[in-house]
């Protein structure tokens, strides 16, 4: 099995409740949004600071909806599953690579992803067309080495896909509601009802000095 590895310095995620009706507008029909509460699904914003990959170092931001995983007896359990509905990178090479290999939907211009790390806080500022589109700040809690499996679902005109992704590195995860997200009115955020997203993430996930490993893409049969 050929694995594709991406080394990162920081990978930070904020998880936010948003209406399930918004989640369903984003998701393809074969995927079911996971609900935190009845009627309340989960939107996540993840920013990566990749230090090494087949296409060099780059920054990336991934906008996702958390979905039901494929849990099968005898196979390693995923921690969770997500549907990245918009990915944006700081380089064209990274964008072309991810579209070709992983069928990920992209913002088709380079974006700016700037990380600012101060003490126990880290902020990722994302800009498109030279204007700010999102600022995510999260805080740390406690750190431990982990190796977690996630499932990423993708869909494009050619088909539906699943990638098993292992995230290794030092992880801090908590639900202290000390982080903050600012989403700006911008075409980048057109799929979200911004006013419905609470500004404090209910969960903050920070991974650092690790490796993200993709297993080969699996094509899914969907109705």
């Amino acid at each position, binding site marked *: 099995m050929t694995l594709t590895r991406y080394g990162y310095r920081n990978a930070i995620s904020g998880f936010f409740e948003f209406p399930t009706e918004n989640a369903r507008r984003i998701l393809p029909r074969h995927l*079911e949004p996971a609900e935190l509460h009845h009627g*309340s699904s989960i939107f996540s914003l993840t920013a990566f600071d990749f230090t090494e990959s087949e296409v060099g170092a780059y920054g990336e931001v991934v906008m996702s909806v958390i979905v039901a995983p494929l849990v099968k007896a005898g196979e390693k359990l995923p921690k*969770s599953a997500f549907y990245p509905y918009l990915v944006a990178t700081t380089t064209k090479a990274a964008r072309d690579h991810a579209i070709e290999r992983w069928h990920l939907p992209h913002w088709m211009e380079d974006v700016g992803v700037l990380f600012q790390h101060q003490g126990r806080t880290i902020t990722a500022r994302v800009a498109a067309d030279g204007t700010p589109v999102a600022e995510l700040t999260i805080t740390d809690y406690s750190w431990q*080495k982990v190796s977690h499996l996630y499932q990423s679902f993708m869909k494009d005109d050619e088909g539906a896909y699943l990638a098993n992704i292992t995230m290794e590195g030092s992880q801090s995860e908590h*639900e202290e509601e000390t982080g903050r997200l600012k989403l700006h009115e911008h075409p980048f955020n057109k799929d979200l009802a911004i006013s419905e997203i609470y500004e404090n993430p209910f969960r903050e996930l920070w991974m650092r000095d690790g490796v993200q490993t993709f297993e080969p893409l699996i094509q899914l049969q969907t109705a």
Partner: protein
Amino acid sequence: MEAAPKKEAGKTAFTDYDYSNFYYGAGDDPLNLLAPFNDWYQEALPNGYYLYSEPLSTAPSTRVTVRSRKTGQVHELINMASYNYLGISYREEVIEAAIEATRKYGLGASGSPILSGTFEIHNELAAEVAAFKDKEAAIVFPTGYSANVGFISSVMRAGDTILLDQYSHASIVDGAILAKSKTVFFRHNNPLDLERKLTGVKGKKLVVVEGVYSMDGDVCLLPEIVEVAKRHGARILIDEAHSTFLFGPNGRGVAEHFGLDKEVDFHLGTFSKSLGGQGGFVCGTRALIDYVNAFGRSRFFSCNLAPNIAAGLLAGLHIVEREPQLRARLWSNVAFLRRRFAEEGIDIGKSTSQVMPVMVNNDAKVFAIAEKVQERGLFLNPVTYPAVPKHKSRLRISVSAAHSEQELETAVQVIAGVLREEGIIRAEGK
């Protein structure tokens, strides 16, 4: 740095997963859900999950006999887990009333309350609960769960909006689901967020809060919530499962405590907490109760509460009315425990009630801590994610009026000793 649980190389620790990971399964067969869960559960059970559902062989008084699901051995433990906040369920007059009703009525109601399952004792109980709560009428449900599910779905419809505190009990959430209304969650005990969520909402609106929240023991910010709800034309339901018979000058609940009994539109309570029995109730106007009688499906389509339970509850209610000193005793015990926990440097979060979470704040250690606490003589339950947020794991304590000061002091010493050994609190206390 949080210690990672021990695990074999390449093998995932059971603590990496929890119930939330097994809600979905692949394929077209519902039975596909079972194997992944059971593979995990077989490892989780001996490593801490055995602490749930351990069978008691005595009444849930302040000392109980419990069979360990891990070793099969029987232990006598100080009970810090059962509700029974006033120590009523095993009082002689309650037991006698239930025995007498069993002789008179037999084992069960043998029918739906709207057909053949209503007995005189049910009507007596409903009337006395209504009088106790100073309301025109009351209706009794077979459980507290069914009271929320049945009441909410009886008055709310598709197209309406129900606003729930994010820490709402599952029965409230399930009632909203059954009502098919739009459900909106506001941040816990946060009137500002409620205001934000209510702004612009048209049509029928119901705000649901709890008098005392069951995992944190904090009391609803009712005055602020009522002010916001009224300003937006929303009706208010208060679930006083953990506060009826305890709070307020007459023990009617948190609404009475705040002097807002009349401002709250719908009052719901249970008999399983302070009375240590079973069942739930809603009280209000005669018109409301008649409507809920007709449209409360969870009651309508259930067998009625067993008449012997109803008789025991009635006897328990008489004790509450006759012995207000029980409430005073409970609050004295709560004050004692709060003071002692503070002296030992033990964090009980935002609790201001008889429900006290001993905050462990360490998901990896909470089961080992609960196991040690039980080995040293206390019966209480660990609570961890997803029942509470990540890293907010805790031991949940229920204080009773029946606890002696010595029992409470023993509990403090056991808990403080274990928390110190595990590095959760400092060696010298606060």
